């Protein structure tokens, strides 16, 4: 029973952050879908766009990781399987977070 309360709060804090970010991303995705490669790179040259995208990705991956954990805890009864899937989900989420961070920094410098 470790830090379940903290996870519960974090799940909701990330949800709250994702409300405006999702609307921003859908709005942006509509214009991005009409752009070519060069125009999309110009979009990310704007620090505001890059910053919002980065915050959205990290918040989304965290929110997703917490949500999937809850689902696994509710439906997978086998202790071993539960632990295995949770480890896989966590590692995937962290890997994506690291990659997104590295490539975001790469765009900044």
């Amino acid at each position: 029973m470790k830090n379940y309360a903290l996870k519960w709060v974090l799940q909701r804090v990330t949800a709250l952050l994702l409300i405006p970010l999702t609307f921003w991303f859908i709005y942006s995705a509509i214009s991005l879908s009409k752009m070519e490669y060069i125009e999309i790179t110009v979009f990310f040259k704007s620090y505001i766009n890059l910053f919002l995208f980065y915050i959205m990705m990290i918040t989304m991956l965290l929110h997703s990781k917490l949500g999937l954990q809850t689902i696994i805890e509710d439906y997978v009864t086998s202790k071993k399987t539960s632990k295995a899937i949770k480890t896989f989900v966590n590692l995937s989420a962290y890997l994506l977070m690291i990659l997104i961070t590295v490539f975001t920094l790469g765009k900044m410098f």
Partner: protein
Amino acid sequence: MNDSRPLSPHLSIHKKVLTSIFSITHRITGIGLSVGSILISMWFLLLSLGPNYFSYFEMVSKNILFKFILVIWTIGIFYHLFNGCRKLYWSFGIGMDLITVYRSGYIVLVLTLISTAVVWLFI
């Protein structure tokens, strides 16, 4: 957590009511959107790696199936977003009486349909 821990909710035992369908749909869209977050990450990585790599995405995005997936994805995003708002105020114990729960559920459905239509029909 041990092996004798009960499953919740008992999907195969409970009678299917609107509220339980709303709840399980939230979880299903959540899983779907998690897969989606991997796809957005891949898109960003391909973009960052350069035009040669990004052409893989451009190739896939020309497929008709891609547009179909995007429409389903949009529905999933809006449903999860609006239903998530409901869950947020439930966390504070607000709006939890049965009539309000049903009413807000229908509002979620209407908002999801309107938002998806705005994105795909008017833009």
